[in-house]
C-alpha cells in the first residue's frame, strides 16, 4: 500500500511537472498590426497616410457637422431637427453645446495621424518620391485641420511631432498668430513636397495646388496681400483651369476636374457623404437641414445660372430615380422654400447618391481671393474677378473697376453653401469692411430673425466645455463664454 502511494504521488508530480513545461502564458495577437511590425515599408507609410483623410468622412467632421458652423450666416436657415443647432444660429450657445465638440476631436485625430507620418516616415526605406508625397500630404492635412480649428475657435493647442514624442497634449492654447505661423510653415513644406497634380487612382489626394490655394486664403485672412497674390498666382498660372461650366464642380461625373484644388472624396456606399442626406428634402430621402434663405436667392442676378446650379427652385424637375423618376420640386418641401443642390443627386434605382464630394478649395475661390487682395491693396482685381464672373454670366457681364462690394457679391454667389460666407464676414467686419452687428441684427423674417452679435466674443466659438474641464485649468476658455 505504501508503495502504491509513493508511485501515485510521483506520477501526480510528474503530471504537474509536464504541464508546467507548456508555454501557455504567451498569447498571440492574431491579425493585429503592432508597433513592432508596422512602419517597415512604403506600403505602411501610404496606408497610414490614407488614414489621415479618414476623419473627413465622419458625420462629426466634414461629412456634415462642419457645415453647422456656417448656419449663422445670412444665406441659410439651420432647419433640420437638431436642438443644439438653434443656439448656434441664434448666437446664444454655451460652451457645453454638443456641436462645439463634434469636430474638435476629429481635427486633432487628423493632426495625430499626420504627426505619425512626420515622425515615422522619414526612417522608412521606400521610394523617395512616394515618401515626399506622403510627407507633403501629412503637412497639408495637419495645416488644414489647424486652419479649421483657428477659424472656428481662434487659438487652440498646437500639437506637433515633439509633443507626441513627449506625450504632451495638455497644452495651453496658442495665439492666433502662432497658429497662423504654424499653418503657413506646414503649407510651405507641402508646396515643396507635393506633386503638382495627381492622376488615375490618386486623384483626390492633396497636391501642391491644394497647398498653394489654402496658403492664398491664409494670407488673405492675415491681410498679407502681396503674399496672397503671389501664392494665388501659382494657381492662376498653374494647371488648374476653371471648369467650363460652374455646375461641373457639383456633378459626380465631373467633380474631380482640375478647378477643384482639394475636396473631400466620397464614394456612394464605401465612403458615403452624410452631408448629402442632411441637405435634401425629407420626402426625398434627406433630413432637410440648411435651407437657403430668400436673402441668398435675391443676391443672385436673375440671369445668373449659378442660382439654378446652387439651389433647388420651385418648379424645377428633379430625377429621383427608381419609381419616383422626374419629380417637381415644390415649396412645401422646405421651410424656406429652397434647398441647396450642390451636394444632391439621386441614384438611377432610387435613393440618394451619397457620392458627392465636398469641395474644400476651388480655383475660383483662389481667383476671388487674389482679386480681393488686389482690391484691398489698391490694385485692380478685375481680371481675376471677371474670370469667375464671366464664366457664369458671359463676357458681357464683365466689370471694370471692381469694388470690394462687387467682390463680396461675387464670393457670396459663387461659394454659397461652401462654408465661406460666415468666416468671410468675420474677417471683413474686423477689417471694417462690413458691419456684422447690423447684418446679423437685421430682421429678415422667421428664418433669419435678428441676432445679437457681440464683438467681444462672437468672432470665435467657445472651446468645448469638456476640454476645459479635462485640462484642469491649462486650457482657458475664449473671452466672453
Amino acid at each position, binding site marked *: 500500500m505504501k508503495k*502504491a*502511494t509513493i508511485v*501515485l*504521488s510521483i*506520477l*501526480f508530480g510528474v*503530471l504537474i511537472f509536464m*504541464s508546467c513545461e507548456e508555454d501557455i*502564458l*504567451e*498569447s*498571440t*495577437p*492574431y491579425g*493585429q498590426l*503592432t*508597433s*513592432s511590425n508596422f512602419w517597415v515599408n512604403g506600403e*505602411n507609410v501610404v*496606408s*497610414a497616410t*490614407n488614414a489621415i483623410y479618414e476623419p473627413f*468622412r465622419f458625420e462629426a467632421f466634414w461629412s456634415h457637422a462642419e457645415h453647422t458652423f456656417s448656419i449663422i450666416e445670412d444665406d441659410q436657415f439651420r*432647419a433640420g*431637427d*437638431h*436642438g443644439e443647432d*438653434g*443656439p448656434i444660429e*441664434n448666437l446664444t450657445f454655451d460652451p*457645453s453645446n454638443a456641436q462645439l*465638440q463634434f469636430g474638435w*476631436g476629429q481635427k*486633432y485625430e487628423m*493632426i*495625430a*495621424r499626420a504627426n*505619425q507620418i512626420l515622425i515615422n516616415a522619414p526612417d522608412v526605406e521606400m521610394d523617395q518620391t512616394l515618401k515626399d508625397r506622403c510627407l507633403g500630404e501629412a503637412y497639408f492635412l495637419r495645416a488644414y485641420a489647424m486652419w479649421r480649428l483657428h477659424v472656428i475657435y481662434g487659438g487652440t493647442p498646437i*500639437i506637433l511631432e515633439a509633443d507626441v514624442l513627449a506625450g504632451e*497634449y495638455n497644452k495651453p492654447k496658442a495665439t492666433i498668430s502662432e497658429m497662423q505661423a504654424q499653418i503657413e510653415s506646414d503649407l510651405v513644406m507641402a508646396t515643396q513636397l507635393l506633386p503638382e497634380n*495627381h492622376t*488615375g*487612382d*490618386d*486623384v*483626390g489626394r492633396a497636391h501642391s495646388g491644394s497647398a498653394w490655394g489654402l496658403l492664398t486664403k491664409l494670407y488673405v485672412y492675415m491681410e498679407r496681400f502681396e503674399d496672397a497674390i503671389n501664392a494665388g498666382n501659382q494657381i492662376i498660372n498653374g494647371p488648374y483651369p476653371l471648369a467650363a461650366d460652374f455646375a461641373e464642380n457639383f456633378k459626380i461625373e465631373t467633380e474631380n476636374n482640375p478647378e477643384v484644388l482639394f475636396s473631400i*472624396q466620397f464614394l456612394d*456606399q464605401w*465612403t*458615403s457623404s452624410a452631408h448629402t442626406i442632411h441637405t435634401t428634402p*425629407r420626402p426625398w*430621402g434627406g*433630413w432637410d437641414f440648411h435651407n437657403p434663405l430668400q436673402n441668398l436667392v435675391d443676391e443672385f442676378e436673375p440671369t445668373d445660372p449659378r442660382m439654378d446650379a446652387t439651389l433647388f427652385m420651385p418648379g424645377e424637375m428633379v430625377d429621383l430615380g427608381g419609381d419616383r423618376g422626374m419629380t417637381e420640386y415644390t415649396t412645401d418641401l422646405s421651410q424656406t422654400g429652397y434647398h441647396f443642390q450642390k451636394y444632391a443627386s439621386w441614384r438611377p434605382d432610387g435613393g440618394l447618391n451619397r457620392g458627392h464630394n465636398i469641395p474644400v478649395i476651388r480655383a475660383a475661390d483662389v481667383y476671388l481671393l487674389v482679386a480681393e487682395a488686389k482690391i484691398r491693396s489698391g490694385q485692380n482685381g478685375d481680371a481675376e474677378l471677371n474670370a469667375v464672373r464671366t464664366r457664369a454670366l458671359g463676357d458681357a457681364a464683365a466689370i471694370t473697376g471692381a469694388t470690394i462690394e462687387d467682390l463680396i457679391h461675387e464670393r457670396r454667389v459663387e461659394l454659397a453653401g461652401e462654408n465661406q460666407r460666415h468666416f468671410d464676414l468675420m474677417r471683413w467686419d474686423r477689417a471694417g469692411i462690413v458691419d456684422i452687428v447690423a447684418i446679423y441684427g437685421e430682421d429678415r*423674417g422667421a428664418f433669419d430673425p435678428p441676432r445679437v452679435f457681440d464683438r467681444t466674443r462672437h468672432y470665435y466659438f467657445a472651446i468645448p466645455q*469638456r*476640454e*476645459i*474641464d479635462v485640462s484642469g485649468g491649462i*486650457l482657458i476658455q475664449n473671452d*466672453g463664454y
Partner: protein
Amino acid sequence: MKNLHNKSNWCLLLLLSFSIAWVSAQERQITGKVSDELGGPLPGVSILLEGTGQGATSDFDGNYQITVPGANSVLVFSYLGFATQTISVGNRATIDVVLSEEVNQLDEFIVVGYGSQRKSDVTGAISKVDGEDFENIPVASSDLALQGRAAGVQIVRNGGAPGAEANIRIRGTGTLNNSEPLIVIDGFPGGTLETVNPNDIESIEVLKDASASAIYGTRAANGVVIVTTKQGKVNERLSFSVNAYTGFSTAIKTLDVLDAPTLAEIKRERYTNDGVDIDAFWLDPEREIQRTDWQDELLETGIVQNVDLGIRGGGEKSNYSFSMGYYDEKGLIKNSFFNRASARLNSTHRPKEWLTIGQNLQLTSSKDNALNTSSAQSGILWSALRFHPSIPVFNEDGSYGSSQENGQLGDINNPIFTADTEDDITTRHNLLGSVFAEVEVIEGLKLKANFGLDLTVFDRDIFNIRITDQTRNRNNNELTRQYFEQYSIVNEFTAAYKKLFAEKHNLEVIGGYSYQVTKRDGFSVRVEDFGSEAFDQRVIDAGTSVNIGNVNSDVFDEGLESVFGRLNYQYDNRYLFTFTYRADGSSRFADGNRWGYFPAFSAGWNVSNEAFWNVDSISSLKLTGGWGQLGNQNVRLNQFLGVFEGGDRVSFGDQQNLGTSQIQIPNPDISWETSEITDIGIEAGLLNNQLVIDLGYFIKDTKDMLLPPASLLAQGTARVTDQNVGELRNSGFELEINYRGSIGEDVTYSIGGNASFIKNEVTSLNSPFLESRPFYGRQNVELARIVEGEPLASFFGWEADGLYQNTSEINNDPGLANDPRREQGLIQPGDVRFRDLDGNGLIDGDDRTFIGNPHPGVVYGINGSLKYKNFDLNVLFLGEAGRQIYNADRIAGLDTDAPFNLYAETVNRWTGEGTSNSTPRVSINDSNGNYRSSTLFVEDAGFFRLKNLTVGYSLPDGITDKAGLSKVRLYATGQNIFTITNYSGMDPELGVVSNAGSTNQFANGQFNVDYAQFPQARTWTLGVMIDF
C-alpha cells in the same frame, strides 16, 4: 500544446490503472435501516465513516450496509432537511437509525472553492441559496434567480428584454472595469450563468470575502459564484419528473404622453412665448388628429413557457441525473423573443471504494432577437414615446406611417415599422463538460484530477433592410454576420488531506495546480445589395457586394496557469483558522508582469463551544475575521501592444482605399487590479439554531484600478491604454437573518431577510475626473462624472431652484448679475432658476456639482416560505433605498425645443405667475438651457417590490397513488406583482447602462440612468410538476 495535453490524459490513465492495483484492508459489515420520525423509510441518506471519505447510502427502503474497520468506528448519518446523527459502532452489527427533521441551519454543508465545509466551521463570508427557493420562477437566466436572496449580492438588470443578461455585484461595484464575479459551474471556472437552466440548480454559493475567494486568485476580486447542479443520489429510486409552466406578461407601467390636439397647442405656444412666428406646420389641422398611441401599439402581451423533463436515480456504485428543458419567452415589445433548449447529464461512479469517477455535461442552445432599446436617438421604446400621435401606424395605402413629411416630426422611424423589420438574431450553442477521478490514496489523502471543456459557438445575423420611406433611411440593404467558436480547457490536479490529531486538532489541507487555455476563432462580414429581402434570401451569398471595410477576424488565445492551496486548522471546535494562497500567471500581461500572488487568511472563534458559555438563549455564537488580496484580470487583451488597425475607409480616384492608423497606444507595464478585503463577522444561532443571524462588516479596497489617463481630445481619438492607477473603496454592513420553524405537525415555515448597506467611494484617480459615458441623446448631455471622493458615476449638473415666476425675480437674482443673457432678454419668467454656486453672477460650467448618487444605501430582500398540509407558498420581496435615478428620458419628455411628442405633464407647464414651479414654460429657443443636466431630472428612486409569489398545491397521496404517480403539484407564480416607489419613470429597477464595448466607455461607467430601456414585465404563470 495539443500533444502535451494528450500526454497528460494518458498519464492520468496510467495513474488510475496503478490505483486499481491497490486493495484496502480487513473490515466488517454493518447493516440497518434509516427512517423518519413517523416510521417512513428514508432513501438516499448519506452514511459516512468519520475521518474517511468512505460511505454508503440508504436504498429505496431505507436499508443500508457499510463496511467499517473496527469497533471504534463512528458513522455519520446525514440527509438534507434532517438533523445529522453521529453514532459509534461499538460491537453492533445492525444499527437502525431514526432521523428527525432538522431546524438547525448551522449543520448545513456549504460548497467552497475546491471542497465543502459545514456552515458552523466556515470562517469566510459565504452566502448560500438553495435551488428550490427559485424553482420555476419565470426567468430566462439563472443570475436573475439570485436576486434578493443574499446579503451583499446585488443583481441588476438594465431593462427587461427577453434573455437579457443581468449584472451581478458582490459587495458593491468593485471597479470601473468589468466587475462581474467569477462563475464556477460544477467546478469549471469561467462559465456563464446564462447557460444554466435555473431548474437544474441544486444550490448557489456566493463567496464574498477574500478568505473564501482567494483560492480563485486573479479572477476573484469581484467575488465568486459557485453553481452546483442537481445530482442523482446513491440508492435513489429511479424517478421521472415532468414540470411545465406557462403564462403571460404585461407592461407594469406606461408613460402618459400628449395627444395630438394638446401637442399641437403646446408646439404653437413655444413660438408665441419666444415672439417667433408659428411654423405653418403646426397650424395644419391634420396635426391635431389623434391617431396612434405608440406605446400601446408597441407593447404587447408577452408569453412565457417552460418544460423540464428529468430522470434521476442511483444504485450502490453509480448515480445519475439527466434533464432536458425548454424555455421560451416572447417579450413585451413586438418581435422580441428568447428561447433556450438545454440538456444535462451528471453522473458519479464508485467502481472501487477508494475510487470515484464522475462527469458533468451540459448542452445549451439559445436564440434571441435583440431590439435596440438603449439609444436616445433611435431606441425603439424611446421612439414610441416621441413619435407623433397624428401619424398612423399604417397609411391608407398600407405603407407604414412616416415622419418624412417634415422636420418638425423628428428624425424618428415608425417604431412599429422598426419592430416589424428589425432582424438581429443571435444563436448560441454551449457545451460545458467535465470529467474527474478521485483516488483516496491513504486514509484522509485524496488526489483528484479534473478536466473540463467549455465550448461556445456564437452566430449573430443582423439584416438591415433597405429603407426609403422613413426618415432614417438606408440606401443599401445589408447582412452582417458575426460568428465565432471559442473553447476553454481547464486541467486541474488537487491533493487534499484531512486528519484529526489527538482528537482536538483537526487539519485539512488542499493544494493544487491548474491551467486553463482559451482560444477563440471567428469573423464578421458585411454583405450588401440583396436583390430580395425575403427571409430565405438573408444569407451571405445572396448579397452582391462585400464591404471589405467590414470584414474582420475575431481571433485570440489566452492562458492562465495557477498554483493554489488552502489550509484549515481547527482546535477543539473552538478556534478555526484558514489560510489560502494562489499564484496566477496570466497571458493578458507582458512578460515580467505576469505572475500575481494572492494570500488570504481568516480566523474564527466558536464562543459558544467554550466551557464558560452558558447563555441558553444563544445556542451558538461565532466570531470571524479575515484579510486577503484578490485580483481582477478581466480587462481588455493585449493592452501592452501598440495596435494599428487597417480598416480606415477612404476613396481616391473613385476607388475604394484603406488606411491604417494606430488605434491603441501601448502600456507595457499593465497588470491586474488588486482588491484587498478586510472583514469581520458574527454568526449567532438562537432558539436551538432555528434562528440564525449573520452580521458582517467589510472594507474592500480596489487598488491599481486600470484607468485610461485623462484623455484630452487634443491627443486625437485613438484609444489610450489603461494604467494601474485608480483606487476605489466599497465598505459596509451585511445582514442575513433566517428563521425556520413549525407549528404543530402540519405547518412548517421559514422567513428570511437580508440587507446590505454599502458605501461606494472613488478614493484615488489619475485625473481631475473621468467621464461617465454615454452622454444623453443628440443634445449630448453629460449626466454623471467619476471623481475622487464621490461614489462611482455620481450624477453631475446644475442645481435647479424652481422657476422664475416674474421679471423682477430675474432682475433681482444675484446669480445673473453678470450674465449677458439677462440683458439680452434671453431669460424669461417660467425658465428654470439655476444656482450660481461659485457666486460669480454668471450661470456657467463652474456652477455644476454632484446632484445624485446611483448607488443604493440599502439593498434588501425578504423571503418566506410556508407549507401547510398540501399547500405551499413562497414569496420574495425586493427593495432598494437611498439611491437616485437620472430620469434622462424626462429631458426628452419635456424639451419643447426638440421635434418630439412630450410627456403629459407638460399640460401643467408654467403659463404665468404661480402656475408651476417645476415644469418650465415651453420655448422654441430655450435660450436659458432649461433642459441642461440638473436636479430637475434626478429623482429619489427607492422601491419596494413584490418580486415573486408562488402558491402550490400537491395532490393528496391517495389520488396520486391511484394514478401511479408519486407526486403531483400544481402551482401559480406571479412576478413583479406590485411596486411601491416615488419614481415617475417606467421602472425603478435599472442597472448598469454603459457599454464597455464602445470607445471611451467603462464597463461600470454609468448606472441607473433611464433611457427608456426595455421595461420589465409583470408575469403570471401556471404550472404543474409530476413525479413518477
